[in-house]
């Protein structure tokens, strides 16, 4: 076993072990144990990311385990967002006592589910088999649905229920596609569906195309691509803020990686252009559905949810265009979106403490009544809108340029137009949220503000670092490795 393989196993095992310990630990020590286990988990994840990025031309490719540049990037993102989510959770848990479970079991259930969700998320980018990837993606549903409805309030129950039913049905459709692929792979059966084996499919290109479409349509329900995105705005807006951050910044791109790997593996069978066109259609549809909502006055978390729909569409477009430039843009986009979006969701805990109406109404003038919180929300929105020097500006330019380079001028033009419209919508929201008229608000202590302010400083450094990396990435070995995938 190589050092990267050993590290990959440890990255998955540590949070899984922590989850077990959280289930068994005395009630009083649960929050401390959760914080203690978060740091080594994130450190291991980042160590694996660094090791994999230092050897981009030598991915580890096994039947059950893979470590490549795209997977390692996501492991790093999940590690960082998971750590931050655990660290800001006490502020959320201190703001109320309601939950799906009894008060005595509240913290244990929350942290154990969070760690279970985190462990499974870390496993998905490292798994080397489509069947096993499906199992893990399905397993995220149970853990995360419990967290979405955690508050036990009527709206959270509705959001959690929709999420559970829609994504489970979608994943059922995806499994049908997987079974069809398994029937045509010479190595035989569901166990033989390693990423490499998929390209040996011999059941005919027509059947492979239908299987690919079913697989992507099913995964789309989990990724949140339009038109099967109905659960996304509800779940993101009603989940506890640390969980919303994990859903948007980690879950969506992680499941998208499964779609990306499937596209790459099936391209020789179905046709490179066909597999990419499907992604471009999903991307443009998602972008087209999201943009009108970015122009509306929406509650803070709901606005961020529609922004997720927009960005997950942009990532799909980048993968669909598939040029080195576009894929470099995808890598930066995934990382920068994760930082900016997670920060936005973390700001929701102090926001709701400062203005409880923010859960159901658009907020204005936060910068006037709570400048530190206004700055956090402003930085998050400015970065998400693609306002320079946001790394998302550079990544969007790379993706659109990649679209022209790949010979998709219409799709690239439509992307540029929709991104410009989305920018205007979010820029308007940015001005209103931070500097608009402010209604009277209480002047009491704001829960979790100090932690979120510290995270804002870290996020600014990360975002500027990513903007610099975005300029250096095109033409590098890392960009080449993204194009090659697992081959």
């Amino acid at each position: 076993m190589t050092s990267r393989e050993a590290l990959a196993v440890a990255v998955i095992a540590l949070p899984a072990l922590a989850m077990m310990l959280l289930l068994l630990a005395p009630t009083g020590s649960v929050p401390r144990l959760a914080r203690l286990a978060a740091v080594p988990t994130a450190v291991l994840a980042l160590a694996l990311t660094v090791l994999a990025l230092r050897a981009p031309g030598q991915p580890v490719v096994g039947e059950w385990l893979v470590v490549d540049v795209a997977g390692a990037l996501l492991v790093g993102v999940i590690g960082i967002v998971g750590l931050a989510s655990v660290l800001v959770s006490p502020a959320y848990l201190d703001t109320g006592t309601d939950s799906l479970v009894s008060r005595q079991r509240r913290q244990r259930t929350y942290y154990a589910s969070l760690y279970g969700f985190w462990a499974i998320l870390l496993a998905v980018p490292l798994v080397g088999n489509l069947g096993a990837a499906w199992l893990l993606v399905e397993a995220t549903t149970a853990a995360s649905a419990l967290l979405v409805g955690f508050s036990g309030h009527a709206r959270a129950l509705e959001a959690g229920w929709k999420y559970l039913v829609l994504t489970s049905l979608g994943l059922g459709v995806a499994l049908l596609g997987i079974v069809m692929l398994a029937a045509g792979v010479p190595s035989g059966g569901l166990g033989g569906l390693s990423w490499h084996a998929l390209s040996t499919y011999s059941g005919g290109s027509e059947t492979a195309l239908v299987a690919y479409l079913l697989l992507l349509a099913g995964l789309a329900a989990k990724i949140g691509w339009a038109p099967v995105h109905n659960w996304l705005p509800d779940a993101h807006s009603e989940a506890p803020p640390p969980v919303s951050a994990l859903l948007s910044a980690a879950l969506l791109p992680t499941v998208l990686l499964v779609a990306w790997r499937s596209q790459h593996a099936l391209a020789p069978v179905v046709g490179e252009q066909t597999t990419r066109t499907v992604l471009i259609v999903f991307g443009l549809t998602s972008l087209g559905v999201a943009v009108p909502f970015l122009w509306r006055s929406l509650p803070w978390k709901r606005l961020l949810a529609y922004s997720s729909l927009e960005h997950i569409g942009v990532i799909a477009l980048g993968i669909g265009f598939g040029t080195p430039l576009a894929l470099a843009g995808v890598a930066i986009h995934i990382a920068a979106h994760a930082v900016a979006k997670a920060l936005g969701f973390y700001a929701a805990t102090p926001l709701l403490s400062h203005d409880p109406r923010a859960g159901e109404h658009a907020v204005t003038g936060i910068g006037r009544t709570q400048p530190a919180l206004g700055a956090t929300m402003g930085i998050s929105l400015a970065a998400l809108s693609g306002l320079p020097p946001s790394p998302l500006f550079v990544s969007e330019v790379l993706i659109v340029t990649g679209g022209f380079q790949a010979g998709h001028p219409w799709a690239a033009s439509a992307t540029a137009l929709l991104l410009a419209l989305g920018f205007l919508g979010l820029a308007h929201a940015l001005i209103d949220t931070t500097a608009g008229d402010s209604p009277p608000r209480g002047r009491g202590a704001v829960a979790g503000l100090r932690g979120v302010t510290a995270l804002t400083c870290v996020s600014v450094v990360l975002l500027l670092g990513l903007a610099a990396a975005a300029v250096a990435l095109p033409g590098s070995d890392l960009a080449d490795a993204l194009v090659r995938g697992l081959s």
Partner: protein
Amino acid sequence: MSGAIIWTLVALGLAVLVVRRRSLAVALVTAQALVLVGLALDEAESSGDVLAAGALAVRAVVLAGLFLLLVSRTRSVRPVRARVAPLARAGIAVAFALALTWLVPAIGLASREAERGVLALIAFGIATAALRRATLFQIIGIVLVENALALAALQLPGGAAVAIELGVALDLMLVAVVAVVFYERIFAEFGTADSAALRALRD
């Protein structure tokens, strides 16, 4: 596998879609899963296959127990009426199944009859989740889809890996347990098991 068994499975699926009582639907979907267990044992060639059949059996019994417990704890004064009448539901589901059979080319399973059975059951599962208003039926719809996929896995030329089959069974049980938690809370919060009550979140 005989065509009679496949069409029995399909008939049980269609019956789930049209029956009114939740307990009867649970019994039908459990019977369907147990038929699949019998089929898996009949075709088992290794200890791994027997283990996978065992997982399917455990899944069937656990889900039946959970669902029946739920039915007994959430009795409504008035049963939830479906939006669409039983015969219309059956008609829509059969049309959906025929469309799927027409659209989807050969899957590569052991027989074309098995492929048609799998597609019909998936159509019935989706139709159950979409057309029934009682929240429990939406979960039963998911179980129907999973039963269809279990049938497909049994009919794969190379068979399904035991690890994958055990994983699918475990995943479904986890999802069902979470669904049960939600179901009870929804019933307590809204005073009904009608999914039409879940309409507050709209833009």
